[in-house]
């Protein structure tokens, strides 16, 4: 599944190569002595590096629905991360290659290429862009330890300065400016939308009830104040609680998976105590407001609609499957049979258990199996085959803690299940 090329990827590749394609008639092909090769490489890496920076900004816009052509927001974030990483590497290649290309002329010329007199302002704009890049990427890449999430997020806004400076640098030096205007406006609009317009377009909900499911796990039942959002099962939202009595995370947005069926007039969200913000939400005051942005992701995307499904959920990762089961319970048309394995530590941690068993009893298309780690250890191939003999033939959906996910990926690939038939979403960096 991760190796598939999506329609969004193709658009991204086209945009990425656009400035290079436009510049190539100017650059020509490298020929002659090594310094001409280095000059060519230096320019090409600069063009690609800036294009990647701008596209990393474009894909960070987080417009609900924009993530679908990319296979969901988690995949889009990975693309963002990947683009940012390569942009950082390439701009350093760019500077170094152009500096070294001048060494055959003289060492002084090489240094003057990189650090020219101030009158060559365009070069210094490039350096300022790089400094801005280091400032906001150093914490992202853990150069000096991991900063607090909210501080990291504020620091990440320096990226806008890096984009502006990089863009200015390129506009002064580029032969053909329009691709940079195009990507530049797209990238900066994405940031402007994310930081300016998006917060005002969030949906207001009121917390109707806070239902405790187990120790450290609650389900929030949210009543829309306006129209509310339209979503599919397994999608997730960013939720910002506004309860003034919250000790942490007030007004901060965090991603949570929806556990209600799309036809439900209430939005239900299962929340496990995993950090300051989600800990505070365990005791959030009913009838206070929350802001919801979304939905995102396409967890239940089908690549093989003709096949039956195998759902493997563990811990709080059961929530998208709860949403899926509730959808089946409301009479939604199922594409084939669904077998859900709930991988819990023990019966105490198997929240939602009764509800899921009830749905399984009432609906033939849905089978439910519990697996307790305390009794059986990690899920084994034998256990799977015993309860679901055709599991290798099904389209498989995974959601759970990273270790469980890794174990299941390994187990399934050992059984010859191709990666294209395994869906998983891991939120560990959202």
């Amino acid at each position, binding site marked *: 599944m991760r190796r598939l090329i999506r329609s969004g990827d193709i658009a991204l590749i086209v945009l990425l190569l656009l400035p290079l394609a436009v510049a190539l008639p100017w650059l020509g092909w490298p020929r002659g002595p090594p310094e001409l090769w280095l000059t060519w490489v230096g320019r090409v890496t600069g063009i690609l590096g800036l294009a990647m920076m701008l596209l990393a900004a474009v894909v960070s816009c987080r417009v609900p629905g924009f993530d679908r052509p990319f296979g969901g927001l988690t995949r889009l974030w990975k693309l963002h991360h990947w683009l940012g*990483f390569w942009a*950082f590497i390439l701009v350093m290649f760019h*500077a170094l290659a152009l500096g070294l290309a001048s060494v055959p*002329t*003289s*060492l002084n010329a*090489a*240094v003057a290429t990189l650090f020219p007199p101030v009158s060559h302002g365009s070069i210094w704009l490039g350096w300022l862009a790089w400094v801005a890049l280091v400032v906001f990427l150093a914490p992202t890449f853990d150069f000096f330890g991991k900063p607090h999430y909210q501080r990291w997020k504020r620091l990440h806004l320096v990226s806008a300065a890096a984009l502006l400076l990089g863009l200015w640098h390129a506009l002064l030096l580029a*032969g053909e400016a329009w691709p940079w205007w195009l990507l530049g406006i797209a990238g900066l609009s994405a940031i402007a939308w994310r930081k300016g317009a998006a917060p005002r377009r969030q949906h207001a909900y009121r917390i109707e009830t806070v239902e405790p499911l187990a120790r450290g796990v609650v389900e929030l039942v949210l009543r829309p104040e306006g129209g509310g959002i339209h979503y599919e099962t397994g999608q997730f939202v960013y939720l910002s609680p506004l309860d003034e009595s919250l000790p942490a995370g007030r007004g901060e947005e965090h991603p949570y998976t929806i556990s209600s069926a799309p036809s439900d007039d209430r939005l239900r969200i299962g929340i496990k105590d995993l950090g300051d913000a989600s800990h505070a939400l365990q005791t959030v005051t009913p009838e206070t407001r929350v802001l919801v942005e979304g939905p995102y992701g396409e967890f239940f995307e089908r690549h093989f609609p003709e096949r039956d499904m195998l759902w493997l959920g563990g811990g709080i990762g059961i929530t998208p499957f709860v949403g899926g089961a509730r959808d089946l319970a409301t009479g939604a048309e199922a594409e084939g049979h669904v077998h859900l394995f709930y991988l819990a530590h023990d019966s105490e941690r198997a929240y939602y258990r009764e509800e899921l068993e009830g749905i399984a009893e009432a609906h033939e298309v849905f089978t439910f199996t519990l697996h307790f780690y305390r009794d059986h250890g990690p899920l084994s191939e034998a256990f799977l085959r015993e309860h679901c003999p055709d599991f290798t033939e099904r389209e498989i959906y995974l959601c759970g803690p990273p270790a469980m996910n890794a174990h299941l990926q390994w187990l399934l690939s050992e059984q010859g299940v191709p990666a294209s038939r395994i869906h998983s979403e891991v939120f560990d960096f959202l």
Partner: protein
Amino acid sequence: MNIHKIAYSFFIAFVASLITLVSVSALSSSDRDEIDDDGLDPITLAELAEHDSAESCWKAIDGRVYDITDYVPNHPTEESVILEWCGREATEGWDNKRPGVPHSPRAEGMLEDYLIGRLVDQTVEPVAAETSSTDEKAGDDADIAETRLSPAEDQRLHQALMGLPLDGRYRGVFSDSDEMQVNVQFDLRDGRLSNIRYRHLAYRGVDYFLLGEGDDLYPVMVQHQQLIDGLEGQPLTSIFALYEPERLAEDIDGYSGATLPGNKVHSAFRDAINRGVYSWP
């Protein structure tokens, strides 16, 4: 190795490379760019203007003159763009590769390979802007610079080796029958005659300089004067015009130019050249 570590390693490698490059450059004594302008051949705007085509393209940039003929085919733009500036002051073109965008420091480095001289205006004063600092330096170092000229730069040596007359003041004589008839003095500058005058002019005991306007031979004295006036400012080789003095002197009172003994004056000039420089300029 996760991508965080790769990014960090690249970052460190990049910074280390920059530091290495800058420090190696600072530590290696490269005085290639420090060529003293005074050591460069002076080139006038007129000379510059003669090299205005792809066959020979000279450009003056920031007071220095470059012969970029060999580079023209390698320039990344259309040839017309670079040829437009040949044979003239091209600093503006250099500083505006595109409007407002100067050539790169690397291009500056490459340009120095084509340096051939410094631009001077007609009065042989450097046009370069940085006069105050170079003037000071020139004052201090002028004598030393003279004696230190390398064999590649010493024009006086070149002229001597090629058997060409050196710049300087010359004196020469024509004598016949134990009588000095012509004694001429002139200066040679860049191969051209100047300050030409007779120190002595006589024939059969008559000193021409003592003649009055009414004397019979006075017009001949005037014609002699016309001969050297006609040579003033001309190349040295123009003394051969003295074989046909009518080219230089008018017919005055029946003494036609054709009868003038211009070959005596010519002989005095040749004598001066053979004697060598009488005094340095």
